[in-house]
């Protein structure tokens, strides 16, 4: 694949920022959208927009076909067995909250355990804290090695027969580490626990097969994988989703409504109260088409090569701290430049047209584990190449010089 050629399909990346060509390295926060996705969304609004599952008219059928077609597209993309296992949500956060509020609140009782890791994003941490508070369940954490990786023996030691839920991110948005989800799932199942996977950072970058992983729930967002904001997915095994209660009630999700009681539609619609995110689903399907045409394995390979190049080049900068393991990581690098605060790093880089993230990355417990208040992060995607890494390195050298003179 050719990153430079692909970049031409992204209108937003053709601009100058602060007098420099934009170098967009904040893809772990959100990715940019190719022309094909933008067109799919506007075509939907221009030709098909209507509400789904109710209109008898032509547009109603078109919108329903587009929406349910997107569900099929998603099911194929992640290897789900059936469209009944694909629930559209607002994003990863909503998907994880659904599992916590519906499945976990029922499944957990006093003294039961929910197993997490200290590297979790707030969205895969706080919903479980709330479940623990409401049910009396206890949170337990799989410890991290000094490079941020997880050892299987520690997983074995943390998950017990009291564990009802294990929820782990597939790929860390800070450390770049890829967690051994399949092995963790196997251990969780041996103890009768369900396995929940936060796939926000894995789905855009790696080939994912939920049946191969054998996880029970898998959540991800469209906007980090070339799709629109406001659309995400919860995959769940059918037999679990079937026994779960909806958490949102209203139109669209009902079967029969009486004055005093109601019944729900079958899967997946019982979890999709209200007018669904139709255009978002259409955009997500277009994003999946776009990614699969390039090939998920090619994207994965490209980013790993780029990450290795970036790791090597950034390591040469004196005074830089790089976080996470040196190998087995995805295309993102979290760092600090000496004593220069990451906000200041990001502002100087921005003046050079380089967009990076600075802050706690929604991982405050992990920041404390790293013993920092904040970090800077450069995260790559299919349209980034070595020239972007070179621009980043030049920008960081300028930052050092600027702050060296200013405060040195």
């Amino acid at each position: 694949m050719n990153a430079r050629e692909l970049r031409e399909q992204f209108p937003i990346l053709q601009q100058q920022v602060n007098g420099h060509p934009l170098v967009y390295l904040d893809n772990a926060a959100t990715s940019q959208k190719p022309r094909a996705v933008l067109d799919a969304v506007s075509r939907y609004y221009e030709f098909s927009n209507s509400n789904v599952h109710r209109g008898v008219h032509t547009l109603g059928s078109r919108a329903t076909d587009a929406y349910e077609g997107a569900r099929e597209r998603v099911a194929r993309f992640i290897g789900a067995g059936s469209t009944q296992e694909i629930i559209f949500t607002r994003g990863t956060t909503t998907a994880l909250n659904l599992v916590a509020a519906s499945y976990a609140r029922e499944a957990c009782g006093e003294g039961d355990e929910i197993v997490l890791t200290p590297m979790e994003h707030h969205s895969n941490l706080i919903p479980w804290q709330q479940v623990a508070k409401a049910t009396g369940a206890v949170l337990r954490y799989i410890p991290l090695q000094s490079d941020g990786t997880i050892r299987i023996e520690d997983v074995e030691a943390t998950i017990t027969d009291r564990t009802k839920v294990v929820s782990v991110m597939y790929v860390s948005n800070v450390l770049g580490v890829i967690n051994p989800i399949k092995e963790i799932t196997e251990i969780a199942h041996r103890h009768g626990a369900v396995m929940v996977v936060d796939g926000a950072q894995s789905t855009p970058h790696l080939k994912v097969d939920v049946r191969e992983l054998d996880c029970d729930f898998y959540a991800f967002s469209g906007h980090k994988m070339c799709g629109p904001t406001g659309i995400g997915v919860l995959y769940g095994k059918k037999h679990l989703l079937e026994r779960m209660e909806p958490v949102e009630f209203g139109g669209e999700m009902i079967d029969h409504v009486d004055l005093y009681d109601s019944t729900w539609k079958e899967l997946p619609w019982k979890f999709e109260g209200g007018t669904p995110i139709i255009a978002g689903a259409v955009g997500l399907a277009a994003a999946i088409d776009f990614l699969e045409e390039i090939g998920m394995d090619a994207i994965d390979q490209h980013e790993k090569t780029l990450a290795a190049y970036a790791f090597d080049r950034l390591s040469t900068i004196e005074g830089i701290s790089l976080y996470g393991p040196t190998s087995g990581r995805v295309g993102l690098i979290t760092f600090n430049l000496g004593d220069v605060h990451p906000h200041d790093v990001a502002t100087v880089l921005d003046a050079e047209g380089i967009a990076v993230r600075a802050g706690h990355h929604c991982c405050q417990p992990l920041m404390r584990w790293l013993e920092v208040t904040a970090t800077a992060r450069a995260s790559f995607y299919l349209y980034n190449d070595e020239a972007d890494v070179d621009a980043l390195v030049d920008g960081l050298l300028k930052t050092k010089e600027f702050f060296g003179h200013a405060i040195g």
Partner: protein
Amino acid sequence: MQLDDLYRRVIMDHYKNPRNRGSMEEDAVTVNLNNPTCGDRISLQMQLQDGIVKQAKFTGEGCSISLSSASMMTDAVKGKTYEEALEMAERFSSLMQGEPVEFDYEELEALSGVSKFPARIKCATLAWNALRKGIEHDGQNG
């Protein structure tokens, strides 16, 4: 966008040599605030007496803008009445909106460049929000 507009020499001087950094032993009002978007935090301690800010000190972690702003603020409000200090905080907010504002503590005007960097305004206002909170709290109790 000129970096020198943001990182003026006087700002860098306050960042490198913060005034009033530390904590107080005496009976002081303490306000802990953080910037939830980045994890920066400030702990502001003030000795408030007879409606006057007698002394102000701070500890915390933050970027050049948040720390230099805290350094200047603690210097600027010392000896001011609550009213004067709150009025100064008000004027600082106007400064962050890009309005031309003058201060008798002139070094504060160096932070005017922050208004051109919208993402950094929260950094500059953190210490001032702590000031407001501390005085309002004391006003309610006193």
